[in-house]
C-alpha cells in the first residue's frame, strides 16, 4: 500500500515529466501560433504600416470595411466561389467514389488518376489551367470549336472568370474521393443486403444507405472545403493578376488581405480582415455542426 502523499508526489512527478516531454510543442505553439494570433488581434485595432510602430485606432479598421468597395467585392466573389464550388466538389466527389465502388475494372488505376492531380503544386496547376483556358490556343476552346461552339475568353472576360475558377476547383476533388471511398468501404454489407431484400433500387440504396452512412465523411470534407474556399489565394493570384492590374472578377478575400499587408503597407487593416475571416470560418463551421445534428448519422452515437 502506498500512502496518499506518495501517490500525489508520483502524480506530480508524472505531470512534470509529461509537461517536459510535451514542452517543445507547448512552447512552439505558444511562441509561433498563440502569440502571433494575439499580436494580430492587437494590430487589428491599430494603424500599422509595418515599418513604423502600430498606433491604437480602436475599431476603425473594422468600421472601414463597410465603406471599402474593394472589400465588398472580394467578399462577394469569395462567397459566390464557395457557394458553387463546395456543392459541386461534394457531388462530384461522392459520385466518383460511388462509381469506383462498383465492379469497375482498373478501379485502383482510376482512383490513382483522380488523386494524382492533388499532388501538383498550386502554381503549376494555375499555369496549366491558364493554357487550357486560353481563348485563342487553349485546349478547351479548341475542343469546343470542333463541335461548332465559339468558346469565351475564360480568364479575361469578367463574366467567365468565376465559372472558370469553379471548374478549376474540381481539379482537387481527388482528395475527397479518397476519403469518401474509405467511408463507403466501411459501410456494413448487411445494410445493403437488407435494402436489397426490401426491394430498393441501386439509386435508393445509395440515397438511403450509402449517403447517411458516409455523412460524417461528407461533413468533414465540406468543412475542409469551406475553409479552403474562404482562403483561396494561390491559383487566382497567378491567373488573374496581370501587368495591367487585377481582374476584378478574379479578386478574392485572401488576395486583398495579402495586398493590404504586404503591398499597401496596411497591416492593421489586413489583421482586421484576417480576424473577420477567422470569425466567418468559425461561424460557418459552427452552423455546419449544428445542422449536422439532424443531417449526419453517427454509428454507435
Amino acid at each position: 500500500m502506498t500512502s496518499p502523499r506518495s501517490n500525489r508526489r508520483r502524480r506530480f512527478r508524472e505531470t512534470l515529466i509529461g509537461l517536459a516531454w510535451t514542452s517543445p510543442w507547448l512552447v512552439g505553439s505558444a511562441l509561433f501560433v498563440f502569440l502571433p494570433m494575439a499580436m494580430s488581434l492587437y494590430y487589428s485595432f491599430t494603424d500599422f504600416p509595418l515599418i513604423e510602430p502600430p498606433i491604437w485606432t480602436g475599431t476603425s479598421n473594422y468600421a472601414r470595411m463597410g465603406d471599402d468597395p474593394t472589400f465588398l467585392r472580394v467578399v462577394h466573389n469569395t462567397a459566390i466561389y464557395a457557394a458553387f464550388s463546395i456543392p459541386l466538389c461534394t457531388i462530384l466527389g461522392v459520385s466518383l467514389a460511388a462509381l469506383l465502388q462498383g465492379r469497375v475494372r482498373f478501379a485502383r488505376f482510376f482512383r490513382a488518376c483522380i488523386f494524382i492531380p492533388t499532388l501538383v503544386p498550386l502554381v503549376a496547376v494555375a499555369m496549366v489551367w491558364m493554357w487550357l483556358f486560353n481563348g485563342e490556343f487553349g485546349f478547351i476552346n479548341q475542343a469546343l470549336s470542333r463541335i461548332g461552339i465559339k468558346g469565351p475568353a475564360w480568364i479575361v472576360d469578367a463574366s467567365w472568370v468565376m465559372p472558370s475558377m469553379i471548374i478549376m476547383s474540381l481539379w482537387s476533388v481527388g482528395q475527397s474521393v479518397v476519403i469518401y471511398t474509405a467511408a463507403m468501404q466501411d459501410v456494413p454489407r448487411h445494410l445493403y443486403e437488407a435494402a436489397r431484400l426490401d426491394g430498393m433500387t441501386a439509386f435508393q440504396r445509395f440515397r438511403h444507405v450509402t449517403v447517411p452512412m458516409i455523412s460524417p465523411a461528407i461533413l468533414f470534407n465540406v468543412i475542409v472545403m469551406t475553409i479552403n474556399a474562404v482562403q483561396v489565394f494561390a491559383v487566382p493570384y497567378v491567373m488573374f493578376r496581370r501587368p495591367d492590374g487585377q481582374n476584378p472578377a478574379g479578386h478574392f478575400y485572401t488576395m486583398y488581405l495579402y495586398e493590404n499587408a504586404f503591398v499597401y503597407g496596411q497591416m492593421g487593416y489586413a489583421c482586421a480582415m484576417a480576424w473577420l475571416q477567422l470569425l466567418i470560418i468559425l461561424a460557418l463551421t459552427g452552423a455546419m455542426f449544428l445542422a449536422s445534428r439532424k443531417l449526419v448519422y453517427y454509428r454507435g452515437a
Partner: protein
Amino acid sequence: MSTQPAIRDLTRRAALGTLAAGGLGFALFGPRTERQASARGRIVLDYWEKWTRHEGEAMQAVVNAFNASQDRIFVRYFVTADIGQKSLVAIAGGDPPDLIGLYAFNVPPYAESGALTPLDDIAPPHGVTIDRYALGVRQVMQHKGQWWATVNTAGSVALYYNRALFREAGLDPDRPPRTIAELDEYHNRLVRKSASGRLERVGFFHPEPGWWSWLWAYHFGGRIYDPAADRSLVASAENIRAMEWMQSYSRSLGVDECKAFRESFGNYFTPENPFLTGKVAMIVQGPWVANLVGAFKPDLDYGVAPFPVAEGLYDPAAPIGLIDTDVLVIPKGARHPEASMEFVAWTQRQDMTELLATKHCKPSPLAQASPEFIVNHPNRGISVHYDIFRSPRAFIPPPTRVWQQFKDEFDTVVQRLWRLEVEPAKALPALETRTQGLLDRARDERLRRHGAAS
C-alpha cells in the same frame, strides 16, 4: 522486475545525451555560413536586388569588381523576388540587409516611414552629388526635399515601332507619329484583319504591355496627381480625353475581338511577344526592349521616338515622357551605413553606371555619358531616351505613399473603360473620389503619427 526501470532510465538518459551531443556537435562542427567563410576579416554587406538573368549577371559583375577593388568590404549579392514585400518585412523585423535595390515608387512610402537612411550628409564625402544626375532622374532620388536614393539604372518610356511594318503599310519609317492624331492614322493604316474578320495585326494597342495604364493623361497635357496639393486629378479634362481616346480603339476594333487578340500574345520576355511577332506594330516601352529584340529577333528593324502627344503639345526640344528607375537605398537599421555608402559610390561611378546601363540596355542615369557609351550602346534609339531624361516635361510615377493602391484602383477602372463597360465622364469622377479618399486617409494617418510636421 529489476531490469525494467533500469532500461527506462537508461533510454531517457541516452535520449537526452544524444540530443545534447547532437547539439554540441552541430555547434562545433556544423555548416559555416558563407558570411563566415568568405569575409576573411572584411565588413560583409548583404545586398538584395530584384534582377535575374542578364540583368542580375551585370550587377554581379559590378559587385565582383567592387570586391576585387579593395580588401575592406565584401558585398554579397542576393537575388530577391518580390523585393518590395520582403524588404518591408525585413525592415519591420529589425533585420534589414545593408543595401536594397527597390523601384522608384517605393521611395515615398519608405522615406515617409523613416525606413531609409538619408543621403544628404553621407553621400557627398564619397563624391556622390545630386547634380551629377540627369535632370529628370533627380526627381526620383528626392522626396519632400530630402535625398533618399541613388539610381543604379534608369529608363524613360518611348514609342517603339516596327519599321518593316511601316514600310509595308506605306508609311515613312523615318517619320514616326508625333501627335495622337498621327498615331491614330498610322494605327488605322497598320490594322489587318483575316477574311473571317479576326484581328491579325494592329498599329497600337493600349493594353500591351499594360504596365503604365495611367500615363496617357500626361501626353494629353494633364496629370493624375498633384503632389503639392496632394490631390488626385484622375477626373481632369485631359485624363477624360485620354480615356475617351483609349476607348476609341476598343470601340473601332471590337471589344470581343480585342479580348481574343490579346489572348494570342505570349509573355513579355518570350519570342511570342506581340511586338516581336508583328502583331502590334507600335508599343510604349523602355529602352530595355532592345535586349528583348537582341535575344529573340535580332533582325527586327525597329525605330524609337518620343510617345506622341495631343495636338499643340508637340515640342521636339522638350518631349513628354515617363522616367521609371531602379533605385539603390540604404535601409534604416543597416549595420554598416558608411561601408554601404562606399559601395553605393562605387556603383555610381561613370564607368560602373555605363557598364550596368549597357547590359540592361538603358541610358546612364548620370547627366554626362561617355561618347563610347552612346556609340556602342545596344539600343539604336538611346538618344531619344536621353532627350526625355533631359526634358523639363519628363515626369515620374506620382510620388505618394499610396501609389500602389492608387494604381491598382486606377488599373481596375481602366480595364472596365477598355471593355466599354463604363464612360470616362462617369467612371473617372467616382475614381477620383476613391483615390482622393486614399490620399486623405494616408495624410490623416501621417498627421496622427507625426503631427503637422509630416
